[in-house]
């Protein structure tokens, strides 16, 4: 089987998972939630196989580099990372409704990559011929993925508290919201996911700096991509510290997490599409 086919199946898997998670919100049926989770695991397995197969194909073509070198490859890896972090959190929290707010990120990523990005396997230009590329991309994207899960939980949090405050305090929120985790748990998921993402982003920035130092002689040159990754890092550092001052849990924390993820996406895509700099993903 080719990696292209496997990526197609991955997309189908995430699509199925997403639809099932929505169905779970509508039906509140535990079996549906379980099926959705199984579909997510299957999607992850397919996504893993597809990435591995692409690596094999690149080796067969005589290049043999890890499939993390262009926009297409980074998007499918991002999809993979989000699902991985989501499932790891799911093992702990088992709050299936969260899937409905996280899996769509992966699904839309896959769809975008497949419909509008070039999937040809190209040899690496000299600037990218380094193992640091692999370490750098993996740590950054796992970090971004942590923030993605936190983003999903934050959206849910805002929906949930919005409804809770409006409705009669005696009757618990009904309908779809009844299977949302409690606001406290959502706030905790938000925090925990950022706790996973933050050290990984730290590692991502450090490996990037190490690579820049190794290849160009400066570990930091304030290039727009570097600067944006630092902006993202500052935002989440602010998030973590704001939790210690009163009042920055809950709603404010959720908003900060959403702003953080928006900045993350800008760092990942916006910088290349809108600004100019050294990093070569996207523009080419």
């Amino acid at each position, binding site marked *: 089987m080719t990696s292209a086919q496997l990526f197609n199946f991955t997309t189908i898997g995430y699509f199925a998972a997403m639809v099932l998670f929505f169905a779970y919100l509508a039906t509140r049926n535990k079996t549906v939630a379980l099926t959705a989770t199984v579909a997510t695991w299957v999607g992850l397995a397919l996504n893993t196989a597809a990435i591995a197969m692409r690596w094999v194909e690149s080796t067969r073509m005589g290049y043999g580099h890890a499939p993390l070198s262009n926009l297409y490859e980074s998007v499918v890896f991002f999809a993979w990372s989000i699902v991985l972090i989501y499932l790891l959190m799911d093992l702990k929290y088992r709050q299936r409704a969260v899937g409905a707010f996280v899996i769509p990120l992966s699904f839309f990523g896959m769809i975008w990559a497949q419909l509008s990005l070039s999937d040809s396997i190209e040899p690496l*230009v000299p*600037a990218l*011929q380094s193992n640091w590329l692999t370490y750098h991309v993996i740590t950054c994207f796992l970090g971004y993925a942590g923030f993605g899960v936190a983003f999903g939980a934050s959206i849910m949090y805002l929906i949930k508290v919005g409804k809770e405050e409006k409705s009669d305090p005696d009757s618990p929120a009904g309908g779809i919201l009844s299977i949302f985790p409690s606001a406290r748990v959502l706030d905790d998921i938000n925090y925990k996911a950022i706790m996973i993402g933050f*050290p990984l982003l730290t590692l991502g920035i450090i490996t990037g700096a190490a690579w820049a130092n190794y290849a160009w002689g*400066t570990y930091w040159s304030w290039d727009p991509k570097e*600067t944006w990754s630092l902006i993202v890092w500052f*935002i989440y550092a*602010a998030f973590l*510290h704001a939790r210690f001052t009163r009042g920055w849990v809950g709603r404010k924390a959720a908003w900060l997490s959403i702003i953080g993820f928006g900045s993350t996406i800008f760092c990942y895509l916006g910088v290349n599409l809108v600004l100019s700099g050294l990093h070569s993903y996207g523009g080419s």
Partner: protein
Amino acid sequence: MTAKNRSFIDALWDFCCSLKLTVVSLILLAATSIIGTVIQQNRDPSEYLQLYGETTYRIFEALQLFDMYHSWWFLTLLALFALNLTACSIKRFPRVWRMVRQPVLTPEDSHYRTLSNMEEVVTKDSPENLRDKLAAVIKENFSAPTITEKDGRIHLYAEKGSWSRFGVYVTHISILVIFLGAIIGNVFGYKAFVSIVEGSEADQVWLRGTREPVDLGFTLRCESFSVTYYEGSMRPKEFKSLITVVENGEEVIKDRPVIVNDPLKHNGIVFYQSSYGPAGDPFFTFEVTERASGESQTYRLRKGQRQMLPGGASFRVADFAPSFQNFGPAARVDVMPTGSSPRSFTVLKNFPQFDQQRGGDYIFNFVDYKQRQYTGLQVAKDPGVWVVWAGCLLLVVGSMVAFFLSHRRIWVTIRSLDGKSGIMIGGSAHRNQPAFEGFFDDFKKKLREEVKGS
């Protein structure tokens, strides 16, 4: 000191220590950093003038927005951040140090009431018996307790991971260490550039920005430079300079390939492959055959250089292209015969038979050409870089400890109640309480069983 002064200094100190300042400065750093990603940094003034116009240019220039990451206000913000970090650590550290080194060994009842995990049990066993039994259970399930007797009560205290309290401080200090490394690099290091033509040498490099020369203390020779491409494409595969280092007349490094992602290091100075280009005119090798006699001779000449041919005529290479309409290297040759007017035609290196058909007095064969290249190397000396890496290591280790490890403590106090014994059990974790609660519930069950079993 007057009371007013005193309170002003206190207020200043509180301001320096406040977490609000931390959040505000982090958000300010994030927000202002955006400016430098939108306005391109360190360009030529003429570029800015064209882009922004005179007035805007003056305003931006005054605010140092064209080199904002080194502007006084951005550096002030960073300094404030570092001050906040230092003050906050100084203020909090002693408390944490005491908590770790001098734990509460003999808690009052009020101490138990502050704990979210606590329980009381009454049993018939004697306090001494209980002490030994419970100590064994705590040791087996958690860690060896410290036993203290005071005012007729027996206290058992056990803890795990006390040093994880320092994770946050290691994280914070790491940021100051990284700042220190950056400062060392800025003060004692430099960034520079050097171009060396193949076959020639350089013992100076030019500073980026000011373009002042700096002596290396040794000599670099560029033996050769080459570019290779992926088969059948113009996608570059490798840029490579062969560099020899000569120090005190001795070749200390010979023919070291310097490629992108594999720089050359010598005496703390690092050379990175960064650019290349043609240096001067190429040399051409031509074989010219006189049609009449059939005799051939080989000439080496430069572009534009006039070369005499047997029989009084002369020729020169008027123009050259390394790649001419997919035919490969091509030269335009001017022949100046004696008597008649000069003639101009093109000779292709990849088609040696081609010029025979032209029917001139001389047949030109473009044998080879040699274009000398220069290699452009970036040069960096940064004695602070290891300090920065040490800081990064502390940052990673420190934040892992801060996030994922916790200081867990268990207290047990036994007192006698008219022939019976009252036991108070309490526990706390400074982080990740839910996980600790699970453990503690189990633990309490074990303790209770032990007590009942007697």
